[in-house]
């Protein structure tokens, strides 16, 4: 009898220990932006630019303009790889439909050398079939930009614990804001601005 009790206690301890380690439901584990977030944001920005009064008032007879994008400046709490920083601005301006539309408005797009190199590596890596692969860039010579395209990425971050008694942060929410500005190089007058917001929430110990 005594042996049965000892055996039972030991087996119950072991089983209980295993039971305590059960798995929970799978939830988002990171609040960092996803490729899909960027895709949606880029399309939204592109649509806003295409339908802007700045574009709608232009035609093929309008004075020639040259747009040069800068690398997206990261002011967020989230790290963005250099390739992604160029990819976002490139995908707004270098989408075939956008290039066609810009061409019909007598606007040429040129990239600074570093941007062209990185964008080429991004496109040649085949990151996305719709990303505008096989694009050709305007030659650098004799194409001084009349307008610069700036993009900024910022965020608001909150982290807290789901535990009512407090504890290590296990929920984090990031609200991201991506805004684009086109300004005239000569006067620095802003001719167009547009922005997109999206948010991400993740659960799980931040330290684990």
């Amino acid at each position: 009898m005594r042996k049965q009790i000892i055996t039972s206690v030991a087996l119950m301890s072991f089983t209980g220990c295993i039971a305590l380690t059960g798995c929970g439901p799978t939830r988002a584990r990171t609040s960092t932006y996803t490729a899909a977030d960027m895709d949606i944001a880029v399309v939204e920005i592109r649509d806003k630019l295409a339908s802007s009064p700045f574009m709608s008032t232009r035609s093929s007879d309008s004075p020639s303009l040259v747009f040069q994008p800068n690398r997206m400046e990261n002011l967020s709490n989230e790290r963005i790889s250099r390739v992604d920083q160029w990819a976002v601005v490139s995908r707004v301006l270098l989408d075939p439909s956008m290039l066609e539309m810009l061409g019909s408005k007598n606007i040429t797009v040129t990239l600074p050398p570093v941007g062209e190199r990185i964008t080429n590596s991004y496109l040649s890596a085949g990151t996305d079939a719709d990303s505008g692969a096989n694009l050709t860039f305007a030659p650098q010579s004799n194409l001084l930009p009349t307008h610069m395209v700036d993009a900024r990425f910022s965020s608001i971050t909150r982290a807290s614990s789901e535990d009512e008694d407090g504890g290590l942060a296990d929920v984090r929410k990031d609200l991201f804001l991506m805004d684009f500005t086109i300004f005239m190089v000569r006067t620095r007058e802003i001719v167009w601005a547009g922005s997109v917001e999206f948010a991400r929430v993740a659960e799980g110990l931040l330290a684990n």
Partner: protein
Amino acid sequence: MHKLIQFFLLAVVVLIGTGCASYKSDTSLMSAMQTGEFGAARNIAIDSAPMNPSDKSYLLGRAKVLLSSMADGVPQSTEGNADRLYDFLRTQGVNKGTGLSSVLTSESSATYWKGEPFEQAMGYSYIAAFDGTQGDWGNVRASSANSIFLIRDFSDAIKRGSEFASEESEQTDQQRALAEREAIIADAQDRSTGADSEGETGTDDGFEFDLIESDFELGYALQALASDQLGDMTDRDAKMNTLSGISSRFNSFVNQIRLGDYNTVVLVSYGLGPEKYGAGYDQVIEMYRPRTASGSQRLLVRQSGESRQFPVMTDVNRLAIDTRWTNFEGMRRAKSIVGTVMVGAGVAVIGTADSADEALVGGLLAIGGLIAKENAKADTRHCEILPQRTYIALLNLPEGRATSVEFEIEGMPQTRVVLPDVSGPSDNAARAAFHYVRLTDGDDAWRTMANPLYANDTHELPESTLPYILGGRCMRTPTPELMSEYHDAGLPAEIDFHDLMAIYQDEGIVIASLARGVELGRHISEGGNTLYTPDPCSVGYARLYCQDHPPYSPSGSLLPALLAQMNPQAE
């Protein structure tokens, strides 16, 4: 009956013998890092890093490649590692749901390595440093901001738990740290048996603590600098105030940022970070012991006859021994207790067994218990090449013009290194330049050489010279413009640029600037197959160009033929 017991004992020995092996630090990697042989260290780190992303130590391997590449002055070859490490550190609860496998196997076999909180903070800082070297201050701020998270203060738990621990009047730092950890565990155990918590405190796994602001100096300093560069003065001032609040030793550093008295930031590190080991009953408690002793010696930087001093920014030994920067894993203790109970019960059953069946049950229990105890041991995986300490030097260097800069730790002349070709930000650059220097002990002549012995992509020699592979002293990226210099130095006139490139190709030499995005191998001057120029503000630069190297050993067929044509007497 005796044979049955013998069988079980044998099984136990075999199981324990083949059970989880504790983590073994890579001594060859540490040795290379300690002697400044960062090229060799980078190779070792790359070769030993797990290739499979599902490997539980995959990111530990990537972290080592990142650290050794940064030290060698070739951060550009490790961008992918920085990206992967960041994504992993930013993933929450990576080991959630691994509890069952943790019970059945060792923790290191079941859980992904993410490091202790201080290792995570250092990881973010190294990613920030990487981004700094790429001129991306936005990413520097993002990564450094993530390195500053709330930490757990167990002071009250230590006081309460100490009542259960034995008093010792004189304790070493290690003994005190172990006693504090045992007190925290004892308090958690006591609380789990009925005591209620009071006050606004947090609880995790039975442990009680107060959440407090981080005291990770390096994170605040990097964020202050990044905000300064990005023009966010509110954030800059907030981080500088916090830094000054942590210690008055940062006052002059903070003032220098406030005055904008710098155009170059150099993150400097020294020593090897602490070693992790298991301590206490069944070695369930994670502890660290120093490899390089802590010290408060300042960093001395000399440039253009001017000398500046900078305080120790972060002492990694301090973080490692501080309970606020340590994870406490309740599961290991539970496994240890369960294992002990099972062994006791098993032995009792065997001792009183009336039949072979009963002895079998007892034996199985004992084996299971021993396995549980063995698997309860602390997970001692750690990044053994973290530095012991870091400094941040703020310098004013001539823009776009190379100058000599010396680094040395106060009172430690063996750490002195002279970097002859450091320049400030390029002309008209809007923001400060960023570099990383890892100091080591040593007396090699190359550490203090005033001028490079080889031409490279940032340094030219006064006289024409042949490419290194042809017996000359030019380690520059070959270009059509260099051909006239090579011809002046003795290259046959009929050899043109394309012929030369064909020879490089025939030798299997990877020219880094023409192969962007690849993980660079060792330099051709050190027996490798890669031609690159490290950051001039790195120890790797001095090691490559400030000492003589043995002649290049051809491996193709074109080069020997050309050498024979150029030196017929040597045949």
